[in-house]
């Protein structure tokens, strides 16, 4: 087995606000292997976005506080890095695509400048003129773990050494080359007429176009890990389908690992290899997506899958989960799902709650569920 790109271990994140402490992410552990897509699915307020932001440490601290755990990205624990080193990991190490592209793009700069900035930074880092973590040279051959010494790169001094190369002014040849690369990336994300788009401002583009530009920017850093936080939720259905198809095609081309966050079970089914289901800050189930969808082993996953409405009203009422998501500041003892669970027994209400354990005896990849009674889950009507 290859070394995982991302290894999250027992990560816990709290928000400390006036009303109390909200446990947004609790004891979450997972691994993401090279070239794989891990989907994280859950309802609003289950902590999936907090998780996505905690990995590259983009959370506002305070109010957020990473209580414990480790986030090892290509072997380096990001939680132990000093704050000034983090920008060196972002962009070329970890790329991100967020939900609202209009909020991620700078309204005062043209599309060209925003894509070119990402490419310029990556090039400076790759040529060693600026400190920063870059992905191994293409093609990404993860079977040979001959990555640059991560620790060494990150510990370079803040100001790059004043060699003759680092202070070289931008020549017109370089500018032309940069422009060509920008065009290349815009074409990669299927933007028609990229020559015109280059000179436009974000507000002049449609939502789907903006999201493509965001994807182009994220990809132009050639990150080893791409975190996509609800990248299509703000888009219309047919546009969402276009962007998802595009991302799937790009995945096969660039072979980056993706952490894909969504509330939409359908989008996850389409995009992910593995899926993690989150409930009230806990990762309650983790496994290959077809296995989890076909044979869920946590009562919450089962309820979530069943409540996706797919009936006509003549066919009787829709199945729905009773109750509602608990308040993250007053989580129930033991398993967070027990008040809504039909399988709940006395031991489910005892602290500590169930841990992710192997749920199905199978030869294939592991299918984990955090439930003492996961064997009984298939029996729930």
């Amino acid at each position, binding site marked *: 087995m290859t070394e995982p790109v991302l290894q999250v271990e027992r990560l816990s994140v709290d928000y400390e606000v006036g009303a109390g402490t909200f446990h947004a992410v609790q004891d979450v552990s997972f691994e993401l292997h090279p070239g794989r897509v891990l989907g994280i699915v859950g*309802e*609003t307020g289950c902590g999936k976005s907090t998780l996505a932001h905690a990995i590259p440490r983009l959370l506002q601290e305070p109010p957020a506080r990473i209580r414990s755990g480790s986030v090892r990205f290509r072997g380096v624990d990001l939680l132990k890095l000093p704050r000034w080193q983090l920008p060196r990991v972002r962009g070329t190490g970890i790329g991100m695509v967020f939900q609202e592209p209009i909020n991620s793009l700078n309204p005062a700069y043209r599309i060209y400048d925003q894509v070119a900035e990402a490419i310029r930074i990556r090039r400076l880092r790759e040529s060693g003129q600026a400190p920063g973590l870059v992905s191994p040279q293409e093609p990404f051959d993860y079977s040979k773990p001959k990555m640059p010494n991560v620790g060494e790169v990150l510990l370079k001094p803040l100001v790059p050494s004043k060699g003759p190369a680092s202070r070289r002014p931008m020549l017109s040849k370089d500018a032309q080359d940069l422009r060509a690369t920008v065009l290349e990336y815009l074409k990669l994300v299927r933007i028609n007429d990229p020559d015109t788009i280059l000179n436009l401002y974000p507000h002049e583009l*449609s939502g*789907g*176009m903006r999201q493509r530009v965001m994807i182009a920017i994220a990809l132009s850093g050639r990150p080893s890990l791409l975190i996509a936080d609800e990248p299509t939720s703000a888009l*219309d*259905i*047919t*546009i*969402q*389908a*276009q962007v*998802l*198809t595009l991302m799937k095609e790009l995945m096969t081309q660039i072979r980056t690992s993706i952490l894909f966050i969504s*509330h*939409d*079970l*359908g*989008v*996850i*089914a*389409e995009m992910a290899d593995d899926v993690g289901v989150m409930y009230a800050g806990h990762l309650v189930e983790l496994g290959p*997506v*077809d296995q989890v*969808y*076909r044979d869920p082993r946590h009562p919450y996953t089962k*309820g*979530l*899958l069943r*409540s*996706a*409405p*797919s*009936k*006509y*009203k003549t066919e009787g*009422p*829709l*199945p*729905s*989960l009773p109750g*509602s*998501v608990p308040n993250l500041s007053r989580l129930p003892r033991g398993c967070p799902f027990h008040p809504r669970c039909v399988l709940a027994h006395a031991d489910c209400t005892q602290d500590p709650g169930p841990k992710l354990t192997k749920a199905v005896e199978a030869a294939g990849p592991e299918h984990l569920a955090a439930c003492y009674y996961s064997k009984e889950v298939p029996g729930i009507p």
Partner: protein
Amino acid sequence: MTEFLVEATGVTKHFPLTQSLTETLSRQERRSIHAVDGVSLTIGRGESLGLIGESGSGKTTLGWLIARLFEPTSGTIRFEGRDISHLTGRELRSWRRKVQVVFQDPVGSLDPRMRVWQIVGEPILAQEKATKSEIRARVGEILPSVGLPTGSLDLYPHEFSGGGRQRLALARALILRPKLIVLDEPTSALDVAVQAQVLNRLVALQEEFGFSYLLITHNVAAVRYVADRVAVMYLGKLAEVGPVRQVLEHPLHPYTKALLAALPVPEVRRRGARYRVSGEVPTLISPPPGCRFAGRCPFVIDRCRTEEPLLRVLLNLPDQWVACHRVEEIGMIPPNELIAEAPVLPERPSTMPATPSPEG
């Protein structure tokens, strides 16, 4: 004559754009956004009509026209046989008790400084004189029917979850016992699990009170469950109207097919190449002649760009209306067989009369 609750005929709503000084001085024709362009539809008594479309299709504008929150530019809307398209003043106000609207954003549409009984009871005050204790009594009666406890009369909206707030908005719409409720994206702010609860409640309420729904949404699953008939809107026009099962399982219009094929389904086996339409929704300002979908349609022929297709029925499907010139050839192709590139179909001369499809 009054067979239908709502009968809209050729309803049009244009929003004029602001003109620059030079445009005004040079006497240029004022341009406008054609949000709804000549739509005709009916809603029967006790029927739920689902209106689906993407953003910018004009579905919300149409809903607001039917609720008379907008006045149509042209066309008529009849409600129980009476033309309400240009009602004003006291007449409009007294008519309003028959139609209520539930808005998309349950946070934005509930005043955070009012208590539950004030919010839900406000429509009563708008229509009739009532004392505080009468209002509280009536609100207390209506709350259980939307699944909220009677004891929550004195709470504020922030004390409810998203689903709870949507129920409050629903209770406010119900309190005057209207004939029609316009639901504008009632579930899009809600999670899947809560969505199912709200949709169940909507159907149960309709059985109890017997009113009609106009369900405006981009959520096909919600329409599938709540609606009896469904209308698909694209760029201010109806593309297809028909019984819900028929339209969702055997869509005829290329746009409906594209829309349904684009839905992500939580089933892994559906992965892989699927029918996609390219391009984006074009602007509604001065739309081109011909079919609105022509620019994105994989089956486009010259006729589509010049002659506007009208809603018509196929001989073998009397309830399903579709606006497409080529429906006889392409209507029967199931959506999952249409992959990215359009299949090559022989172009037929545009003068040939429409014939019913041989497959049907």
